[in-house]
């Protein structure tokens, strides 16, 4: 879908260019060679650091100068293992052949998607977490930033960031998903969409911060308070209204992700985190909470982030992200180049709690098979699933279907259109997958 033709007042630049740089995924034989070298290093002994001089490695991962002896010619890889490695650095870098990348869209106001097809496990590396911002990323100083809590409270209070960090900390893993995630594949399911383009507006993070309930107790939230306004310190002073009950339930004020302070694009120095809810309401660059009795009806909960429904209605305050899943491997632009066994692997999540079940189909939804869930699913967090599949060169359509602990089953696209209309504009959680051609090429299949 052409982002310039977006019909909404919102006109989010959510509809991405199609393909990220994924050369490493297209060249498995090169990756294999590097893996061999690394494996040889391990065989020689852990004390020896093996390195291929960076300057000798082109972008593709192939040596361009001073090639080491071929592993085939030196079975143990001793020759390369004897080369002196590079020294350690203040911050680490990825292997030269590994280049997972986001695809930024929009000038100042915009988005970029997590490269789901390049990732494994469940934690999204912090620098690959998806971004969506409404007025750019502000540069804030944690030493002067403040969080003001006022309105229907006993003690209006201004906290420094240091004071927030001195309160008892909790660390929990939650996903965030933009409610526009999946708009382009829902509206216009083109075959050349990647997993990143289809579902990359979700990421999963170990967040550290303070329960909002702790701050509610500190300031003495009054019983008559039913909603609070959360305000960011970005250029549009973004505001959204949140039911107070969510604050007592599981809301957090977070200041760290995956073991380090928040990245600027994720709200440094403070972010409101509302687990399981549409991403925009987890207010980044949080500077103010005002307790009140009714929602404020800000632009972000009226003009946009409302869901048109059939019958001339629009659903408002549609906070929860319903259960969803996406197969990330294989996915476009992969080309399966070996017959035989491989995992069909992907991610599933629900804003209502734990994922209870993920099923995989290899025949376009005629038959379904239970996938294995990796580890114990956590509430409102990504869980990795896999199903072992033996490909014999046939055409196949791979789909995944998540069920959460409330019994909600991820719907088909046609089910969603039937209940909400083709013009529905958020919360696209339809079953989708990938069509595998006889030549092994993999293309998006979203018309379920």
């Amino acid at each position, binding site marked *: 879908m052409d982002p310039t033709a977006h019909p909404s007042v919102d006109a989010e630049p959510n509809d991405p260019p199609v393909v990220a740089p994924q050369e490493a995924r297209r060249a498995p034989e090169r990756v294999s060679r590097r893996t061999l070298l690394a494996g040889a290093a391990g065989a020689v002994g852990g004390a020896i650091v093996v390195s291929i001089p960076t300057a000798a490695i082109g972008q593709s991962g192939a040596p361009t100068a001073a090639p080491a002896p071929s592993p085939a010619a030196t079975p143990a890889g001793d020759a390369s293992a004897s080369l002196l490695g590079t020294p350690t650095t203040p911050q680490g870098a990825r292997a030269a052949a590994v280049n997972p990348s986001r695809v930024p869209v929009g000038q100042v106001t915009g988005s970029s998607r997590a490269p789901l097809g390049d990732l494994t496990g469940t934690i999204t590396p912090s620098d690959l977490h998806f971004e969506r911002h409404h007025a750019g990323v502000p540069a804030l100083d944690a030493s002067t930033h403040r969080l003001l809590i006022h309105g229907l409270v006993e003690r209006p209070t201004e906290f420094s960031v240091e004071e927030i960090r001195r309160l008892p900390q909790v660390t929990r893993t939650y996903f965030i998903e933009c409610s526009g995630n999946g708009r382009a594949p829902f509206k216009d399911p083109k075959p050349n969409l990647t997993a990143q383009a289809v579902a990359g507006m979700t990421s999963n993070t170990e967040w550290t911060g303070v329960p909002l309930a702790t701050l509610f107790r*500190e300031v003495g939230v009054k019983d008559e308070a039913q909603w609070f306004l959360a305000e960011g310190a970005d250029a549009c002073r973004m505001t959204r209204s949140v039911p107070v009950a969510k604050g007592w339930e599981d809301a957090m004020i977070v200041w760290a992700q995956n073991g380090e302070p928040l990245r600027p694009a994720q709200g440094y120095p403070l972010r409101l985190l509302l687990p399981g809810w549409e991403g925009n309401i987890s207010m980044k660059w949080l500077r103010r909470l005002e307790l009140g009795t009714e929602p404020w009806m800000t632009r972000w909960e009226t003009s946009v982030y409302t869901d048109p429904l059939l019958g*001339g209605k629009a659903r408002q305050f549609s906070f929860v992200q319903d259960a969803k899943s996406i197969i990330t491997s294989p996915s476009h632009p992969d080309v399966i180049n070996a017959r035989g066994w491989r995992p069909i692997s992907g991610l599933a999540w629900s804003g209502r709690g734990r994922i209870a079940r993920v099923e995989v189909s290899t025949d376009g939804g005629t038959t379904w098979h239970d996938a294995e869930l990796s580890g114990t699913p956590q509430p409102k967090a990504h869980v990795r699933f896999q199903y072992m599949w033996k490909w014999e060169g046939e055409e196949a359509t791979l789909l995944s279907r998540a069920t959460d602990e409330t019994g909600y089953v991820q719907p088909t696209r046609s089910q969603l259109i039937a209940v909400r209309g083709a013009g529905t504009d958020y919360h696209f959680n339809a079953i989708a997958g990938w069509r595998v051609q006889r030549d092994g090429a993999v293309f998006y299949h979203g018309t379920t």
Partner: protein
Amino acid sequence: MRRDLITVVLLLAGTACGGAGSGTSASAGSTVPATFERYDAGAVAGGPGAGTRYAFGRQPSDSLLGAWDTDVGKNGAELPPGKGSVAQGATLYAASCASCHGVGGVGGVSPNPALVGRDSSAEGFRFADDPKLVKTIGNYWPYATTIFDYVKRAMPHANPGSLTNDEVYALTAYLLSANGIVPDSATLDAAALREVKMPYRDRFVADERKGGAEVK
């Protein structure tokens, strides 16, 4: 009151089990993790005890509250003094807004949204039926006060917060007039803006999704 009760229960449980932490997990029961409703100062190892505070922070100054507490809710109770006319707003719009939102507000450079439009095809709130319909202030927004709040805090894009209250009233009047909601001769102040009812306010409904088997 309910939270006080829970605190008392926690305190008792903590005493009985020999520690507030074990009291918390005991009260949580099954595999469902304790929600933060139960997570207070009494549930933290070494903490000051249930029902107490850390007492960080300071009372905000009036100047901070005045600078930050500018939100205007749906009833417009917080609307500031000032006024502006449709004609004044039209001049301001042409100078400060049209470069992004288009002449007359009908849409400019993506992703900046169209603000004005009462095309008959988009009347009737049929947005779910027809993905091509374009939402505007006139055919979608439920509250006129939202215009004032948003323009005041976020516009113009390159210099947000720079408009005076009079200018924001004028721009609000212009956008409402261009959408056929107030007459061209209108001047808006706080009282007049509170009286404006948007045509599709009653089309917004609560989220009835609850989980479970039914897809909504």
